[in-house]
């Protein structure tokens, strides 16, 4: 992602989100259960993508903190769907060679006897390509 314009275009296309609809009310961030964990919050993702500041987002651990709970999607009064922006930035990162956030070799250390498959399948889907 050396060219910021291309990266922005890619995130906009991949997310399908119209970031210009955002009125910066902050409702998405107020309802986000991952708020405390995030350096950049859902409304900042939307705003920073609009301004083309993808590199900062791509370098931030915030992209791995989203819980895919769709609370911001449902509660945004303008139908912006911030979670889709977070996911598109994360995908732009992990689709690059060598950028997987989790590898299958990491899994055995995380296992416990009650852990459902669902958790491992979803972690691999969200964090690696």
């Amino acid at each position, binding site marked *: 992602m050396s060219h910021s314009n291309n990266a922005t275009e890619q995130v906009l296309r991949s997310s399908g989100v119209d970031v210009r609809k955002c009125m910066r009310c902050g409702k998405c961030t107020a309802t986000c259960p991952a708020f405390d964990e995030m350096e950049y919050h859902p409304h900042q993702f939307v705003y920073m993508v609009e301004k083309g500041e993808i590199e900062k987002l791509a370098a931030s651990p915030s992209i791995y903190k989203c819980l895919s709970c769709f609370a911001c*999607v449902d509660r945004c009064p303008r139908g912006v769907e911030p979670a889709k922006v977070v996911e598109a930035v994360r995908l732009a990162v992990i689709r690059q060679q060598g950028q997987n956030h989790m590898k299958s070799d990491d899994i055995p250390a995380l296992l416990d006897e009650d852990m459902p498959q669902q958790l491992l399948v979803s*972690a691999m*889907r969200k964090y690696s390509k």
Partner: protein
Amino acid sequence: MKFSYYPGCTLKTKGKDLDRYGRLSAEALGFTLEELPDWQCCGAVYPMAKDEIATKLSAVRALVSARDAGEELVTLCSACHNVIKQTNHDMATDADIALRVNNYLGLETPYNGETTVLHYLEVLRDRVGFDKIKAAVKNPLTGRKIAAYYGCLLLRPGKVMQFDDPENPTILENFIRAIGAEPVIWGMRNECCGGYVAAENKAQAEKRSSIVMEDAKKNGADTVITACPLCLYNLAKNGGSDLPVVYFTELLAEALGVK
């Protein structure tokens, strides 16, 4: 009544009780869940990106099997349900995704979201009816105070899932009444437990799930029910509470006398 049924990988392993009690109860209530012959794991999270095609294929294959069998498709795991329902919505409403998926699959008859996807709870509400369930109950769970945990995936995104009012749902509470118990109404029932990060960020998962469990306890619940193996794992393991967390199908089977 017969339905195509997509159990999902977790219901074949750690989540066996959700499946087993669901099937036993279905037979007791007069409907059959016919497992799809050739299903594959749905991937557990809906791929939100417009340019993710390969990750949507297993959900579409399940939808196509059900269509070809001429049946509605029933799911039980909240996560499978969310993935399959949202993918079906894409196939019906996003022409670009539908075209690319259809090109890839090369089906005889292209698929465009024709299958009706139902969660097991919707079968109970809309196909069987809670009145009939109430009449079929042999051991009413009288005196039990049960907190229904919806989590996120059954309800959201509301306009796609169309399962219930996402901010003020009633389906699980009506289910609880039908089996003779009393539903507890509590604020955290549709807020996320942080299950998805339980593998890599246990501290975050512990924090979120403790908030959920404390709220259930504070409101007088003796049991928490869920339809999601990940919610169950996370709340029971990381919620720091002595309240039991069980699958709704287990209580249904108990009430119907088939447990």
